């Protein structure tokens, strides 16, 4: 089996695919890539199925050696990668020769970069998925972020190398945005007019303590109008919950499955991948849209992802 040797792990590098759905009744959240569109595009570049497992890196990338060579691609944010000290562009498939070293540095754009390899990263699936669930130590590579000297297997790949690149024009639609679109949360009417206005007019900064479980925001505090006591209920990916302190938290891929704080809004599906590229201290705003509009934006996005124009061969 071909392998990847981890010479330096980077800040937080984990094996991720598109997550495990259907285990809410036992409290297991889906996990999966924080920016699933980058992972899907990366897999297409190397000729994999969209949901194959890749490596997700955060803010500072790792250094990897490919003793047997591989076909690889980097997607998402630009971490200034080099292959044997030669610039390695994001968004292209590259044939790595046996023994070459891929080195990533600190990000020069968003929060996350994905390394996809033809054949996918081979780990024993947990509940049908290769995704790492860091908090519970389940899935991925030994249930944890990568460490120096780890050796990862690469799945068998029968395909040959084809030079592919992301069409910059088409991929503009996936670029980073400062304004996240949201639909009303289930408890939106618990918040006063003035709180809702503060929420939609205010600018929020992503707090340093944010992680794959949730993004904590600093900015205009919002308070509930009523004195209602919230009964714990299931919470959705991208739910923006408001604890008593008034600082909103966006629930993210490794989210708790249930929660007891009122939810003012929910990030739309078509913008969820953008959450994965937010860095600490990034400024964001929220824009309300209807459920119908949110759905048509998702349909548009999926059309573009499935289109031939996205990838140039």
């Amino acid at each position: 089996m071909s392998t990847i040797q981890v010479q330096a792990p980077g800040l937080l590098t984990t094996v991720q695919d598109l997550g495990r759905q259907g285990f809410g009744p036992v409290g297991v959240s889906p996990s999966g890539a924080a920016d699933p569109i980058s992972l899907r595009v990366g897999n297409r570049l190397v000729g994999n199925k969209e949901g194959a497992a890749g490596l997700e890196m955060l803010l500072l990338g790792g250094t990897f050696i490919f003793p047997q060579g591989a076909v690889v691609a980097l997607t998402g944010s630009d971490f200034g990668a080099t292959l044997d000290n030669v610039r390695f562009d994001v968004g292209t498939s590259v044939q790595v020769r046996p023994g070459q070293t891929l080195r990533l540095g600190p990000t020069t754009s968003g929060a996350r970069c994905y390394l996809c390899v033809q054949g996918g990263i081979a780990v024993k699936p947990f509940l049908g998925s290769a995704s790492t669930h860091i908090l519970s130590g389940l899935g991925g590579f030994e249930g944890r972020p990568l460490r120096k000297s780890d050796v990862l297997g690469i799945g068998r790949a029968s395909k040959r190398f084809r030079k592919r690149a992301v069409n910059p024009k088409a991929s503009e639609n996936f670029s980073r945005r400062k304004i996240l679109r949201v639909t009303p949360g289930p408890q939106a009417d618990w918040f006063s007019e003035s709180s809702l206005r503060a929420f939609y007019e205010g600018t929020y900064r992503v707090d340093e303590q944010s992680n794959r479980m949730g993004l904590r925001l600093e900015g205009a505090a919002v308070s509930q109008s009523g004195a209602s006591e919230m009964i714990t209920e299931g919470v959705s990916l991208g739910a923006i919950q408001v604890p008593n302190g008034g600082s909103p938290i966006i629930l993210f891929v490794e989210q708790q499955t249930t929660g007891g704080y009122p939810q003012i809004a929910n990030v739309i599906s078509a913008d969820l991948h953008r959450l994965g590229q937010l860095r600490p201290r990034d400024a964001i705003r929220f824009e309300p849209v209807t459920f119908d509009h949110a759905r048509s934006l998702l349909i548009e996005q999926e059309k573009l992802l499935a289109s031939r124009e996205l990838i140039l061969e």
Partner: protein
Amino acid sequence: MQTAQTDGVEFQPASDQSLLIYFGQQITPDAHQRVRKLLRLLEREPIAGVRNLNPAYCSILVSFDALQLKHAQLVEILRGYLRRLAAMRIPKGRELKIPTCYGGEFGPDLNDVASLRGLTPAQVIELHASVTYVVYFLGFVPGFAYLGELPEALATPRLDSPRRSTPPGSVGIAGNQTGVYPFATPGGWRLIGRTPIAMFRPNRKAMSFLAIGDRVRFTPISSARFAALERA
């Protein structure tokens, strides 16, 4: 009387790909039974396009593929399921015991809970172990069971500032709930003891030690017994 089962049920879009079904807005045995029944029916006869289910005290969150389903379509399908709940039978929950070593390093908040409620630590232990709890649902993190009702005399608010990490197996109380932390997670519940039982076992078919509807009692054990069970 078939419509009775859909009476008082409310649907609420939670996101563009999820829908909440509320069986009222109160924690009641009836709401719990309806949650269990609908969950069972949805697990047995999955709806095409539905991706995930998150049961809670008196609600279920249904997540779906927005490319396949719209809220209104899902509501229509769910109404059909709800009409069948009245005729459904669900098995009585299992009776399980959770051996727990109370106080000391295992229950750092036991003394605070006692003084907050004007009890001795021994009375807190006795009260906590005196009743049978129902597993209302599993949520929060893998294998975390929401257990109720805590005896009124023990009802205590959450910690003002949550711990950054609670040791796995910690038995906590909050409001009128009690539960066991399966993993080292942040947590605001007051910790009164710890169990050596693994609450989440990823290698077993039944991954969670507890299942929705189970009936649970905590049984006090010594630290020596705790150590012996932990080794076993």
